[in-house]
Structure formats: structure tokens, C-alpha cells
């Protein structure tokens, strides 16, 4: 157990934080349709659900929005473009929503997001915080949206994946190659292999999607137990909390 006394005021100098709460991150500047805006908000909000019914609630919200997917597409894209660059999670949530709605018309917008310039790193001194990484996560999620369209038979989506098999960012190339291998037709795959051969990047073909149980696991507890091992306290049981 810790040798520190519980919560004694001390003479150090802890930091102070002031937070301002806003209702939601979006402006809906170009959409006066309050019902549609509310449906988009609900779907985004439900993405972060917790509890036994979280997925059901999320799916219900997406399905409801899906009834107006055509109208929603333009609003979602406009909101994505209006968000400040540093709202990475909020930008990601809109791309995830585009991916969920599986609208063939979204292919062009997803392509624009993937192809957009990645701003220079803003956390240069860090090894764990990286704005470039946040930007790439947004773009690989857009690739995932294109892969879903490709699986639905949207030809433009396959062309987009082939185009981004030569993207300058490794993770985008890797995701595009894997997506096209999984959803493209034989001609697409031939063209992809020829492209990778020409670029000397056949190694991308060897990166396989795997089941987590098939990869080497961490061996917890090896060399690592803290000398002051705490007593083993079970967490409160969830029974009775969720119905």
C-alpha cells in the first residue's frame, strides 16, 4: 500500500484548470433542419455509449439517420469541413458516421478526406502525443468507409483504394492495399500487385490482418510486479446496475 497519508493538503503548487462547457462541437451553420441535426447529434453521441445496451442504442440512432442518409451526407461533410483542425475526435466521429451510412455518394467526400494534406506535427517534443497520428486515424477511418463501399460494389470506391495504395502515408497505403485485396475483383488485384511491384512495395502484401488470439501475447506479471504489491481488491460487481 502507498505510504502517503490520504489526501493531506501540501505545500506544493498543483495546477488549476478552468473548463467551459459547450452543448456540442458542431455549428450546423448550413443546416436549418433541426430534426436532421438532432439525428446526427444523437448518432455521434451514441458512438460513445457504455453499458449492455450501448451497441443497440448506437445502431438504432444510425438506422434512424440512415432513413435520411442522402440529406445527412451534405450536412455531415459541411460540419467536418467547418470543425477546427484540432477537434480530432469530433472530426473522426463524422467520418465514422459517413462510413456507417454506406452512401455511394460519400465516396468523393471520403476520397477528399484521405487525400487532404496532413498538417505539420504540433506536438514535436512528444513521443506519445502526435497530431499527425490523430490526422492519420481520421484518414484510415475514411479508408475503412471506402472499403465498405467497395464491398457494396461501388466501382469508384475500388479506384479510390487503388489510388491510395500509393499514398505518401504508410498506414493509409497499408489500409488501402488490405481493403482492395479484401473487396476488389481479380482485375483490381492484378493492377494492385503490378503497382506495388513497380514501386518496390510488395512488402505491403505480406502484412496480414490477423485474429488477436493468433499474435504473440504480452505476458503480464513477468518481471513487473511492483515491490509494494497492493492487496487484491475486486471491483464492485456490475449486477444490479445494468438491466
Amino acid at each position, binding site marked *: 500500500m502507498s505510504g502517503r497519508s490520504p*489526501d493531506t493538503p501540501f505545500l506544493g503548487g498543483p495546477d488549476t484548470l478552468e473548463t467551459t462547457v459547450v452543448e456540442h462541437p458542431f455549428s450546423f451553420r448550413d443546416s436549418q433542419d433541426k430534426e436532421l441535426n438532432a439525428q446526427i447529434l444523437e448518432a455521434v453521441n451514441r458512438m460513445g455509449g457504455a453499458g449492455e445496451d450501448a451497441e443497440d442504442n448506437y445502431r438504432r440512432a444510425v438506422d434512424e439517420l440512415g432513413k435520411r442518409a442522402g440529406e445527412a451526407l451534405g450536412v455531415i461533410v459541411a460540419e467536418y469541413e467547418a470543425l477546427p483542425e484540432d477537434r480530432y475526435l469530433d472530426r473522426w466521429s463524422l467520418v465514422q458516421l459517413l462510413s456507417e451510412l454506406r452512401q455511394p455518394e460519400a465516396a468523393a467526400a471520403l476520397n477528399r478526406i484521405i487525400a487532404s494534406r496532413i498538417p505539420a506535427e504540433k506536438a514535436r517534443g512528444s513521443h506519445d502525443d502526435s497530431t499527425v497520428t490523430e490526422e492519420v486515424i481520421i484518414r484510415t477511418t475514411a479508408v475503412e468507409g471506402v472499403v465498405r463501399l467497395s464491398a457494396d460494389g461501388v466501382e469508384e470506391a475500388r479506384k479510390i483504394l487503388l489510388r491510395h495504395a500509393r499514398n505518401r502515408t504508410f498506414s493509409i497505403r497499408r489500409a488501402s492495399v488490405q481493403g482492395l485485396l479484401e473487396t476488389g475483383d481479380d482485375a483490381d488485384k492484378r493492377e494492385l500487385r503490378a503497382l506495388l511491384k513497380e514501386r518496390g512495395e510488395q512488402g505491403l502484401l505480406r*502484412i496480414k490482418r490477423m485474429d488477436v488470439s493468433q499474435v504473440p501475447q504480452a505476458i503480464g506479471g513477468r518481471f513487473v510486479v511492483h515491490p509494494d504489491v497492493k492487496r487484491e481488491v475486486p471491483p464492485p460487481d456490475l449486477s444490479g446496475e445494468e438491466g
Partner: protein
Amino acid sequence: MATCTYTVPDKNASGDNFYGAVICNQAYVDYFWNTYGFSGNKAYWDDGWGWDDSCNTSKPLARAFNGCYALTYSAPDYLNDSYSSAILNWGRRYVRENIDDLRCFCGDGTAIARSKGGGLVEVYLGFFYTKDVPGRAETLIHEARHQGGKPHDAKFPTGSTFGGGKSGADSSWGYEGAWMYGALYLWWYYAAGARTTSALRNRARQRGNVVIDNAFATHPGFSI
């Protein structure tokens, strides 16, 4: 002593508003406070950080508790935290055995968290407001691995999103360092995470893949 400010949406996809309803229960507050290194650190978690408002998910303490909730309850069989099970199960045990002292600071924008040795981990604004809920659990596991005696041992590969040539990468998956622990946790969260949504599981997959692609000097050769 620094003063920082942040504007936080009441509703977005981070997961906080929903987790918030769950963690607002004295049994969880007591458990998280006493188990994951908060105890003894009231002074740090006060003054706007949420000590006197631990259900308010616009404040850092509740958002940290949300990460602790995901860490504790995301395995379908969460009561099993045996080291012979998956990291989704024992990640919480590993964190509580290695992080003894968890403190919050504004930070200078160059880190999400830092491991200071001796069980002390500092978390900064990005931990609460850039990371989603499972991402915070991943960060605690990453820092716990440093506390467990595994520093980073390599430079990021050329073209890495974390900055090619910079120190802070792990040499390989087999090194079993902090990046491997974090990526593996995200992978299991994607594959088997309970009490969450497919959207957050997909986000875990995307983040895990970017880590696998960019945080190892030698690419492991697989992806999620």
C-alpha cells in the same frame, strides 16, 4: 503552478457522457480513487480538476474515472484478471500493481502522460480531452508498462507518424514494451470489448493499427 483552460463539448463521441452516468456511484468512485493511484492526491485533483465534482464528465477526474471504468469492465468476464488471460482482463491488474501515484497537470502540450518512476505517473490535458475513454485506458497501460521496467528502446522508423528518427519507439513487438501493451489492449478491445459500441471498437482498431504501423522500429508484419 500553472493555470490552463479548456472548452469541452457536453455531448460528443468520446464516451464520457454515457460512462458518466455509470461512474456516478460512490462504490465506483471509492474503488477507482483507492485502486488506481488517486488516493493521497486530492491537492492535484482539486482546483477545477473535479475532486469536488466527481460525476461531472466535463472535469478531468470524472473523465479519468471513465477511463478506469473501461479498464476495469471491458472484458466480458471482468472479474477474471488472471495473467493467464487476455490483456483486456489483466490490464487493470497491471495498472494497479504498477501505478501507485496518479497526478494531473496542465502540461505543456508535448505529452499525454509521463511515467516518473517509483509508481508516479503524470497525466496532462490531452489525456482527458484528446483521448476517448478506451484511449485513456490504453494510456494507463502504456505508462504502467514503463513503471514495470520497460523503457522505449528504439527510434521511430522513417516516415513514422510519431516522427521518424525520434527516440521513443520500441524495437519490436517481441520486446513487449509499452507500445506493444497499448496496441494489444486496443486490439482486444476491438475484438472482444464489452459494454461499448462498434464505433468505439472501430476507433480502437484504427488507433491500434496506426501504433503497429508507426511505433515499432521493425514492423511486426500483422495488423488488426
